[in-house]
């Protein structure tokens, strides 16, 4: 697996989370699928992207709150899972775990970057107070560039760490594929169901809408 395109993709999609253009192409279902497609296995990317999307449902990126950064992390997770040919038992669990750890580190790096941006804004205060367009534009360009570098560095570190680690974990894995995948999707589904309840429980008849959807989903499941 060539790490460079994955790192560049992670840097690009890491920028989308906050700085530019916030089109949510950094969401796991998109970012992990793109990483899988880069490695010629978009289906694997979509599978892990969907699991990560379920987990990310409850994470609402409100303003100054601290949250995991899913863009770069999903690219890392998608690349790790898509590179395990044949989706062996344990690959999904280990790749999701790697993606979650990457998301935490990447979220922490975003906080550091915001502090660096604050430091630069304070240092440029006199120019900003004088209405300098150069200072304003310079601050924006610095923030965008630094965010790109940040996402790329996090992805590079994660790939260097996890690329050899995941096959090692998979080689020692004991449970079967179905059981392993079922546990992972069950954990993700619990998180998603909890998030849906937390976000929407105050909406009138939310439980009724959910149960109606569940009836439709179960019917579709039986029909397929």
């Amino acid at each position, binding site marked *: 697996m060539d790490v460079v395109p994955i790192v560049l993709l992670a840097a690009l999609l890491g920028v989308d989370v906050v700085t530019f253009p916030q089109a949510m192409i950094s969401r796991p279902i998109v970012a992990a699928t793109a990483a899988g497609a880069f490695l010629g296995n978009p289906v694997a990317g979509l599978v892990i992207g969907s699991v990560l999307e379920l987990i990310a449902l409850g994470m609402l990126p409100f303003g100054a709150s601290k949250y995991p950064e899913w863009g770069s992390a999903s690219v890392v997770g998608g690349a790790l899972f898509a590179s395990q040919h044949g989706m062996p038992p344990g690959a999904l669990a280990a790749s999701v775990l790697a993606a979650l750890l990457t998301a935490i580190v990447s979220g922490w790096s975003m906080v550091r970057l915001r502090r660096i941006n604050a430091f630069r*804004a304070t240092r440029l205060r006199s120019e900003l107070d004088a209405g300098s367009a150069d200072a304003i534009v310079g601050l924006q360009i610095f923030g965008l560039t630094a965010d790109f570098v940040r996402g790329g560095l996090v992805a590079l570190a994660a790939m260097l760490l996890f690329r050899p680690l995941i096959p090692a974990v998979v080689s020692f894995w004991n449970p079967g594929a179905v059981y392993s995948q079922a546990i992972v999707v069950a954990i993700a589904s619990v998180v998603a*169901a909890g998030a849906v309840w937390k976000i929407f429980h105050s909406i009138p008849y939310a439980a009724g809408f959910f149960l109606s959807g569940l009836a439709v989903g179960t019917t579709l499941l039986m029909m397929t």
Partner: protein
Amino acid sequence: MSTSAISEARLPVSTWLRIYLRLFAVQGSWNYEILNGNGIAFCMEPALRLLPGGRGGEAYTNALSRHARYFNSHPYFAGVAVGALARAELDGVAPGMIERFRIALGGPLGSVGDRLVWASWLPLCSLVALTAFGLNARPPLVVAIFVLLYNFGHLSLRAWGLRVGFERGLRVADALGHPLLRRGPQYVGAAASFFAGIAIPLVAHRVAGDGKALALEITLFAIIGGILLARFAEHSEGWRLALAVLALFVLYSVLR
């Protein structure tokens, strides 16, 4: 063209486009000191070139200095502030009034945007895409559904915000009472709840890849676990729990 003539009519198309494109980078230098204040000034800058004296003139630099300060809003609603503040500057509103208006505007733009976008539209689009995945849609289709659906709302909201902000200027607060903004989160949330019910069993089946009974067991487990999580771990974040349980599972599976 005088500034009042511009403000009575509309922004020139090239200026409007420059501002609109810059709005996508409004959080480019987001920081804990002035939040997206610098981004607001960055986005307004093309409009401020229309002030008397043009680029680099006294009115231009004074206006830029007023706006490169603390400001907080939802990024998609920043266009409302940029449009309204640009209109106020081009109308020659007194600086003190503009400052008070800036302070009053930030909070509502943040809370309306958070409710409508982060807590409603984004989860709905995710759940629709997850439903498509569960129905065995191919990767390009799932990605296209999410990206197109989400960005239909995203791009429209940014364009609407800039237009309504510039049209209404200091009276833009009325626009935030629009029925779509007031009741939208409720309807979108209801739809998201519905799609969550559809998506969970279908995604469980596609990922676990075994019989339908297993998918139904996972769904039942998810509902009970989700309710317990929401009730008894109200302040904890689900992803942290997922991380802890998953780490234990990986350790157990490797060391067993």
